[in-house]
């Protein structure tokens, strides 16, 4: 297919661009296969706006006489308005944008056409391989092995080719366990807590059904993670009610009788359309320009967004607490084990493991616990808060995770190597990107699409020093401790950096950030100077002494 067929009017002049907090600008609008480009040729203030079609969530058109107006709502929550003279041009442009922003085929997406303008230092597709992760693990314990059972994605289509499992469980047993778990997602290692050797595993729900099926291999597998005489916790991310209802559909939960060494705890984390609705309501509240404080608070409350944040964080803290404080191993699962399960396991690691609070460690966490673990990014992030499509599988699961990370970052502003901008960047790229990293729903699809060969990895771009410097937290001081966030409502806040990003002037906050960087930079410079002088003095003094001694 040629994109040109979809572009009836590739260019329009005298278009006026409206954005909140900016003066309206007149300029030229161009449409290309993947971008909407607006450029103003004003002498004093020439500027260009490039917008990926894939970033466009919805488009509305209005007419006043022959002047058409297009309102474009983006997945990154920005809203812009374009006034286009000429009804025909306007209609053409609107329909082109609509078609180009809803392309069916993944292979037509921009990442397959994007040619990087920067030099690749390190190929991000090879930055976080499971083998490396296992190497780190095997330096502290030999109770685990790397299994290639899923090499051709034949056992579990949503798992990566290699997974880490208890050494005592062979591939044959794994195959049987896979039959017993929803979507074949058998329990695998998610995190090993070096401090006390406890582990966190994740899986999907067991297929016990109404007649209480059991699977000896499954029991053996998860018992293999327990120390003798020790108990473990199963954190089910569904309420008991939901879990019981799942039995009617062949799913279910671990029966006490068959898993006597495990205690099950139910936590209710919402899924799918409930989350999507919550996002839509929240963004609507944030875009409400009324000056009424009460309306704002009740809308914020009605969106339930912060309730979801609180639930997810609480479940993650609980998992971390079981591991660190109780000295118990933990298995986390919900239904499929691709959404709330991953929120809990990844957040628990941020709480427990200082490595996950570094830039590289966090990237590795996203790769391990989200991309390789088979979170269906393409389905979940197809649309954002402005979409009307209301597909069942759309849900801001990853955004909620990032929001939770931000909440912890806000409570521990000196314990993270990255800053808020880093999290916002990941949010943007999960929804629309020139990089292939977040395309596809799992490793299986990614390998079929040959993404590593045909597209560029986000990490190749981010991990260059020019980019990294934007994402570094000037306040960072390595903190080797477990960090326990507060989940009280008073401690949780709306993530303004994302939800009010386009509605508030950021100048004063940016200035504050800059000032912070300057203060710390100046301090570091002085330290270096003082150290240099000290060294020089020390050298001179020893010289002196030597002379005296002579």
């Amino acid at each position, binding site marked *: 297919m040629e994109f040109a067929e979809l572009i009836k009017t590739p260019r329009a002049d005298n278009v006026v661009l409206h954005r909140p907090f900016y003066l309206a600008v007149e300029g030229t609008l161009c449409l290309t296969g993947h971008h909407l480009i607006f450029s103003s040729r004003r002498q004093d203030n020439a500027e260009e706006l490039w917008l990926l079609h894939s970033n466009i969530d919805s488009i509305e058109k209005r007419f006043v006489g022959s002047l058409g107006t297009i309102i474009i709502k983006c997945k990154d929550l920005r809203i812009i308005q374009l006034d286009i003279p000429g009804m025909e041009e306007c209609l053409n442009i609107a329909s082109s944008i609509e078609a180009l922003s809803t392309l069916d085929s993944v292979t037509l997406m921009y990442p397959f056409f994007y040619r990087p303008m920067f030099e690749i230092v390190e190929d991000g597709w090879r930055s976080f391989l499971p083998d490396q992760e296992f190497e780190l693990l095997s330096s502290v314990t030999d109770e685990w092995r790397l299994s290639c059972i899923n090499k051709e994605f034949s056992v579990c289509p949503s798992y990566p080719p290699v997974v880490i499992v208890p050494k005592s469980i062979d591939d044959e047993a794994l195959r049987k366990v896979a039959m017993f778990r929803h979507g074949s997602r058998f329990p695998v290692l998610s995190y090993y807590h070096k401090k006390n050797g406890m582990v966190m595993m994740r899986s999907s729900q067991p297929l016990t059904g109404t007649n209480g099926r059991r699977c000896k291999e499954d029991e053996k597998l998860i018992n293999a993670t327990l120390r003798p005489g020790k108990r473990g916790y199963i954190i089910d991310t569904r*309420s*008991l*009610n939901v879990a*019981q209802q799942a039995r009617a559909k062949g799913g279910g939960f671990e029966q*006490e009788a068959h898993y006597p060494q495990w*205690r*099950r*705890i139910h936590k209710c984390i919402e899924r799918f359309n409930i989350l999507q609705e919550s996002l839509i309501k929240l963004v609507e509240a944030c*875009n*409400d*320009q*009324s*000056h009424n*404080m009460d309306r704002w*608070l*009740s809308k914020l*409350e009605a969106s339930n967004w*912060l*309730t979801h*944040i609180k639930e997810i964080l609480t479940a993650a*803290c*609980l998992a971390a*607490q079981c591991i660190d*404080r*109780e000295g118990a191993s933990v298995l986390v699962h919900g239904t499929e084990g691709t959404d709330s399960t991953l929120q809990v396991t990844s957040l628990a690691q941020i709480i427990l493991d200082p490595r996950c609070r570094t830039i590289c460690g966090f990237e590795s966490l996203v790769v391990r616990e989200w991309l390789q673990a088979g979170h269906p990014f393409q389905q979940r992030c197809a649309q954002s808060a402005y979409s009307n499509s209301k597909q069942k599988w759309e849900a801001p699961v990853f955004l909620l995770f990032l929001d939770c990370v931000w909440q912890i970052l806000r*409570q*521990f*502003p*000196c*314990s993270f190597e990255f800053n808020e901008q880093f999290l916002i960047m990941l949010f943007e790229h999960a929804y629309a990107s020139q990089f292939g990293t977040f395309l596809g729903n799992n490793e299986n699809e990614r390998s079929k699409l040959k993404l590593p060969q045909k597209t560029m990895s986000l990490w190749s771009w981010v991990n260059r020093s020019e980019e990294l410097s934007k994402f570094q937290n000037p306040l960072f*001081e390595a*903190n080797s401790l477990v*960090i*326990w966030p*507060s*989940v*009280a*409502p*008073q*401690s949780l806040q709306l993530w303004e950096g994302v939800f009010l990003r386009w*509605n*508030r*002037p950021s100048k*004063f906050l940016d*200035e*504050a950030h800059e*000032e*912070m960087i300057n*203060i*710390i930079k100046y*301090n570091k410079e*002085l*330290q270096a*100077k*003082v150290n240099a*002088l*000290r060294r020089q003095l020390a050298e*001179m003094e020893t010289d*002196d002494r030597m*002379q005296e001694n002579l």
Partner: protein
Amino acid sequence: VENVRLLDRLSSRKAALGTLYLTATHVIFVENVSETRKETWVLHSQISSIEKQATTATGCPLLIRCKNFQVIQLVIPQERDCHDIYISLIRLARPVKYEELYCFSFNPKSDKEEREQGWKLVDLNEEYNRMGIPNNYWHISDVNRDYGVCDSYPTEVYVPKTATAHIIVGSSKFRSRRRFPALSYYCKDNNASICRSSQPLSGFSARCLEDEQMLQAIRKANPGSDFIYVVDTRPKLNAMANRAAGKGYENEDNYSNIKFQFIGIENIHVMRNSLQKMLEVCELKSPSMSDFLWGLENSGWLKHIKAIMDAGIFIAKAVAEEGVSVLVHCSDGWDRTAQVCSVASLLLDPYYRTMKGFMVLIEKDWVSFGHKFNHRYGNLDGDPKEISPVIDQFIECVWQLMEQFPCAFEFNERFLIHIQHHIYSCQFGNFLCNSQKERRELKIQERTYSLWAHLWKNRADYLNPLYRSDHSQTQGTLHPQMAPCNFLYKFWSGMYNRFEKGLHPRQSVTDYLMAVKEETQQLEEELEVLGERLANLQKSQSNDNKVKSKQQDRSKQLGLSTSNNNLANTPQEYCNDLKSFPSRSPSQGDEEDSALILTQDNLKSSDPDLSANSDQESGVEDLSCRSPSGGGCLPSEDSGKDSDEAVFLAV
């Protein structure tokens, strides 16, 4: 009383056993644990209510709520002791004479001269001079010398030059409690001013020539503008109701060239109830997000804060952008008027955003113009209906502005919290009584100390590290965003949940940056010393061991590690959730319930350091002996981090 248990509000399991002492000024609780012997001090004047609850098997619970939002729960073993304490506290918390207040016994061991200097720190005449007054339009009037015209006004009042004593006295007779229009703020650049008064006694039709002349004089003192705004900060309905009592508001027809404007800020009773409701929300045990947000909205607190801000923004805009003078009043002109005038001044003039300027602002708009501190904050036993968090709201407005303009204020959040604390503490004489007249009669300045001197002495603690006097944000008028979606009016947990440390960010950016800046300063000094030594050494090539050892001492003091890791490493009560979970899903089997109990037991035994969370600093002790960099500066034992000392030694 011995064997008293101090309960932690967030969790009933964490209780500290100790001894309770009652002194003439404080309630003191000392923990039994021998190494720490942690002390909790509460001033009697901070106590807002005491509640004796039903006796249980473990003893008699006593709940003490404080005006600085601390809530203390004690369990006293003997009912009789509890009752005695209850009775004593009720008496001690409600003194009837000023002489019983703490400030008359408080002695910070400074001499008389120092005390006098302290009181001179803030000088309002100096402040009006700074504004450029007296000048061609404004002068100081001695019409109220012996409080003869208005007993709640100061003796020195600034009025338009053209307003004769006759006009002032005439106008005062037409105003509630004779609070005639007087100058609050003057803008040098365009002659626009903010004046304040009480409501006119207009009833349905009354008018007063002198009052009309007074307003005209204010207008003429600003030659650049042909009208003035008269801002009534009350809701229109309230103002209209006042007409029936012979009071009311200005009739535009009777005054030449005024533009009349209502701004609906609610009265002190509404505000008192609103705060009460919000505090109930803060006190909820493990509330859900909805409980909290719904309760917050229902309290209306943030709506009121926004109303006050909006009024201040309106006035600041009139003065700075339109160059129009404004007369502000409410009913008596000492509550809402004080709030609105001071918010407007703060927005208009960067000086008030400095530490010294903020003291001056409170002294000018609140203390001197007769804000009734004694009645509003219940220092002496009085009518509970007079109590209202009027200045608390102003202080919160400042905090909201600090959130929006992080570089614009010289002081930090702690400064605001400590001012709030001392408005209620009665440890210093500044906020005693209801007017300047009463304070002079009590000879406050000779008998008590000034808070401003105390804060000024410790100003290093109160600096905002992001403030730079040459920063663009520090210049000129601030233009805050109005809509909630442009700028969020946030719940101020640092104030209202001040004593629940567990709820706050565990690492403070402010403290961190302050420590960095302090270190930077030391480095600067050291750099200079090292530079000199290097020069000397190069000159004489003689070594100076003495200086060297001194240098090493200093570098040892430089340990920089602000992240409060002790606190950071304390898990919250997620186990609360463990406990509450069976109630959420009652359909669970018995087996699971026992599992849960096991979990709790386990948590109890494996969580010895949970108690570290309950370190509630409180009272004066905390306020007066804070080191510049705070307790957080000590490198924590298990942080496993290199302090700078190590870095330095390695070099």
